[in-house]
């Protein structure tokens, strides 16, 4: 069931324009459909940071997904950038919000934004298609959260995962904690969240996050091969199996938004973001 998609459905384009939905070239992402597989490619330099622009195009994508779903059996999400899948939220934009709205108002702005991105994540999460994240390199924060909404994660052996948000005085805000908790034991979730350490694909597979670890540069190819295999299965059964095994933790997702908005108005967050934005450290991702 795709509960939160109600608002999106209302914006579905007339059938005449559905063909144009089969491919899209935006500033931050693009998609196309081939052999029953929708491929969503992220391509915003420097590392697919998710801000308002990406969110707007993701909203276009989920509107198209509603239309395209009937023609496809699989969705692959990947990055065309060499440096990685996605570094997460656009922290510079987040810092700008605090500067622009002030700490008293930023929580309201953050809530509106988070509700929009949660809607996107929930639609992909609950899509009747089988969804695959093909990741490589940096898969951090919101990028990790985007991978977690997918049914399968296929990881290049050079992929690296991390929830660095505590370094900024925040928690992951795009649904990361409830989805990690859905997939992993609580002790592992605490380790990843509370230490903020990054870990590689082998570790990710060992703890049950990643379904396949593949050679460098092979994630997309293997994802396509997997998607081709999925095309042999009856779609109704596959969608029913997914609904059965992958419930969306709506209540915890809402609590995550509430907690994020409580935390973002604190001076510690402004300081953390300022430090990141102004950092000349050679290792800002490890600090």
């Amino acid at each position, binding site marked *: 069931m795709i509960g939160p998609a109600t608002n999106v459905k209302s914006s579905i384009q007339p059938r005449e324009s559905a063909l144009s939905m089969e491919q899209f070239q935006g500033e931050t992402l693009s998609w196309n459909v081939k052999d029953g597989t929708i491929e969503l490619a992220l391509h915003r330099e420097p590392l697919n940071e998710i801000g308002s622009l990406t969110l707007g195009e993701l909203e276009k994508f989920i509107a198209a997904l509603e239309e395209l779903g009937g023609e496809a059996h699989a969705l692959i999400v990947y990055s065309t950038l060499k*440096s990685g899948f996605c570094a997460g939220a656009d922290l510079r934009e987040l810092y700008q919000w605090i500067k622009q709205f002030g700490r008293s108002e930023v929580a309201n702005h953050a809530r509106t934004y988070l509700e929009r991105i949660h809607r996107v994540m929930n639609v992909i999460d609950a899509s009747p298609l089988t969804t695959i994240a093909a990741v490589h*390199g*940096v898969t951090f924060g919101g990028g990790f959260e985007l991978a977690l909404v997918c049914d399968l994660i296929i990881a290049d052996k*050079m992929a690296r995962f991390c929830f660095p948000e505590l370094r900024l005085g925040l928690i992951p805000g795009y649904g990361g904690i409830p989805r990690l908790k859905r997939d992993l034991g609580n002790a592992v979730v605490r380790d990843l969240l509370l230490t*903020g*350490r990054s870990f590689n694909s082998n570790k990710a597979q060992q703890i049950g996050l990643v379904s396949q670890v593949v050679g460098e540069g092979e994630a997309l190819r293997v994802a396509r091969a997997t998607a081709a295999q999925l095309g042999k299965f009856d779609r109704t059964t596959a969608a029913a199996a997914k609904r059965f095994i992958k419930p969306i933790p709506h209540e915890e997702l809402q609590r995550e938004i509430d907690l994020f908005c409580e935390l973002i108005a604190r001076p510690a967050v402004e300081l953390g973001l300022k430090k990141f934005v102004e950092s000349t450290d*050679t290792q800002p991702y*490890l*600090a």
Partner: protein
Amino acid sequence: MWKAQTHNPTWPSKLRTDMSNTDQVLDEVMQLAASHFKVPPEKLSPDDDFFKALGIDSLQTLDLLTKLENHFRVELPDYELQGVSDFRTLAGKIQARL
């Protein structure tokens, strides 16, 4: 130019073994870094600042970290590497997890 110093006969055998392992790790770290970032290995020294010697930024450092973890089959938490910038100390951190 760095030279391995692993065979001082006056050292106790346990220390010789440990030093040998550490030097071997150091050698492999430098070889791996040189190969991955296409830097001539003879241009690297154990006490070099690897950011400068390899000409790498923070994202490429993550690549190096992943390469090393995969090669040595160890986990290297980021916080253990904070402030580490030379090959010798890096090799020591790896050795401590072997």
